[in-house]
């Protein structure tokens, strides 16, 4: 009797890049619908522009680099880059804002580093930060939430505003726009005012940021259930935000916002579920993921509270991206069968002195 001998792996996993990315795309849908519902059609226009520009930029770069088109263009990762970037942009942005951001994200942050799997930094966050530091005025064009009492734009009017910068007769930009809760809090805080008494609250305008976060949470829960992401990074990031914000709030509750405000008032939930969990740029070991997420949460609150920009999620993610090789090195799990990890094996093959 003869037994066939095969080499490993004997059990193949069915997951593929395209499969995981499809799950993420579906998980983005509830949050996007909620954002369109709460913040107007401008969100949808941003998504379409950014996704289209990202896809075209990817195709152009693959052509320039003489790489095969099919794997990179059908794994849907570039669509997610564009989509996530678009959801970070203000809902009254001019058309070129999502386009420039998406092109920069794909060309510089992804393809110049070697394409999917090789990029050091989260491409969507690089695109966002480039827009934030380059076009500070355009990046503040936040419209009031749709149910906040301000006049709202129809789809055609929003498209007209995005492309031509023209508003319907009788509608002024000031009537449409409104500072985000984080912006308002920053204004009060930098002027030395008392945050608690200034009426800055996440509940104003019908608590729209709460509903938006719940919709993103639903998508994130689905990703967790499907196994597209793991719990470590989101949970650690939220804990990092709560702990750091709690400490600052405990020290001086008049100068710093409370932890719940930090959790809901900005991009923490969205960032924890969709940005920090990027499989390419996040830490890859279980303990490393906890460190990575906690670091992002801590840095986010510190940048918001002590830095120059209202939201710090993007900067925090990029800073922790830089730390990933170090985190992964110090959190390698023990090799199966060994009692403790062998620190003598350095990644570069040399022995430590």
């Amino acid at each position: 009797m003869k037994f066939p001998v095969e080499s490993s792996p004997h059990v193949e996993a069915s997951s593929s890049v395209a499969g995981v990315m499809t799950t993420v795309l579906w998980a983005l849908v509830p949050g996007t619908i909620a954002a369109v519902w709460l913040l107007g059609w401008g969100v949808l226009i941003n998504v379409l522009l950014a996704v289209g520009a990202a896809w075209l930029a990817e195709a152009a770069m693959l052509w320039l680099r003489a790489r095969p088109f099919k794997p990179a263009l059908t794994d849907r990762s570039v669509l997610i880059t564009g989509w996530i970037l678009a959801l970070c942009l203000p809902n009254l942005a001019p058309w070129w804002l999502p386009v420039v951001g998406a092109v920069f994200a794909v060309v510089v942050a992804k393809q110049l580093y070697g394409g999917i799997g090789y990029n050091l930094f989260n491409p969507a966050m690089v695109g966002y930060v480039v827009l934030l530091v380059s076009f500070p005025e355009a990046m503040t064009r936040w419209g009031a939430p749709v149910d906040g009492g301000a006049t709202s734009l129809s789809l055609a009017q929003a498209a007209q505003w995005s492309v031509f910068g023209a508003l319907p007769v009788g509608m002024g930009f000031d009537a449409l726009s409104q500072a985000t809760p984080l912006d308002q809090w920053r204004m009060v805080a930098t002027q030395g005012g008392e945050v608690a008494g200034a009426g800055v609250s996440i509940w104003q305008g019908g608590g729209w940021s709460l509903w938006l976060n719940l919709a993103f949470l639903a998508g994130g829960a689905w990703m967790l259930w499907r196994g597209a992401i793991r719990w470590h990074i989101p949970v650690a990031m939220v804990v990092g935000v709560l702990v750091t914000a709690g400490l600052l709030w405990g020290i001086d509750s008049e100068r710093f916002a409370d932890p719940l405000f930090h959790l809901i008032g900005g991009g923490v939930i969205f960032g924890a579920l969709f940005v920090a969990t990027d499989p390419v740029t996040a830490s890859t070991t279980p303990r490393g993921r906890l460190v990575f997420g906690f670091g992002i949460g801590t840095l986010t609150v510190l940048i918001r509270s002590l830095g120059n920009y209202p939201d710090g999620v993007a900067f925090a993610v990029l800073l922790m991206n830089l730390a990933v090789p170090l985190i992964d090195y110090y959190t390698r799990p023990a090799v199966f069968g060994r009692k403790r990890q062998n620190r003598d094996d350095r990644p570069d093959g040399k022995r430590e002195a």
Partner: protein
Amino acid sequence: MSEPRLSELALDGLWKNNPALVQVLGLCPLLAISNTTVNAIGLAVATLVTLVVSNGVVSMIRDWVRPEVRLPVYVMVIASVVTIIELIMNAYFHSLYNTLGIFIPLIVTNCIIIARAEGFASRHAVGFSVFDGFVMGAGFGLVLITLGGMRELIGFGTLLGGAEQLFGPVAADWGVRILPEQMTFMLALMPPGAFIGLGLLIAFKQAIDQRASRRARAAQTARSGEPVVDAVG
């Protein structure tokens, strides 16, 4: 030591061994001062003059300087030259002097200058050393000016803005606006823009070199009639 040919020296400094694109020396002024064309031209000329004079002086004294003390002597020579240039700029190009600020005295620490003094001028005759200083300075300066032009164009939308700082009141209207103000990209003016711009310039040089070597290989194989074997793949 046998003296090199001048054409080889020129090719080395301007292209093959370009201080900015290949040796990647003097990054600090290259990245910090390349935000406008005029700043870049000012620093490029200052660096070039420093290189020429310091190379010449080092070459002149090369037979009297003992090897044990050569580096302090070279640094003293370079520092004296830079001090002279700093005083001249303060006297004749005062507003440019104010704009460039600390980066004029910092020319002393530019690694290109000590590298050429140690690597070339201390072993070659005065004429060759002066010529080497000139082509190396020109190679560095051209990259600096190119980068300055790129960054000013993308970041401000202008070229040669503020030329009167360098060329006097005649040049007050030399600055041209090429892109409208709404189309400028502020990132180019910031430090990341300098790094990305220099990276693109280096990549561009590599692409040209690779293309040339591919062509040369193809021409060679075509002449010898052998089948084309692409070893690089």
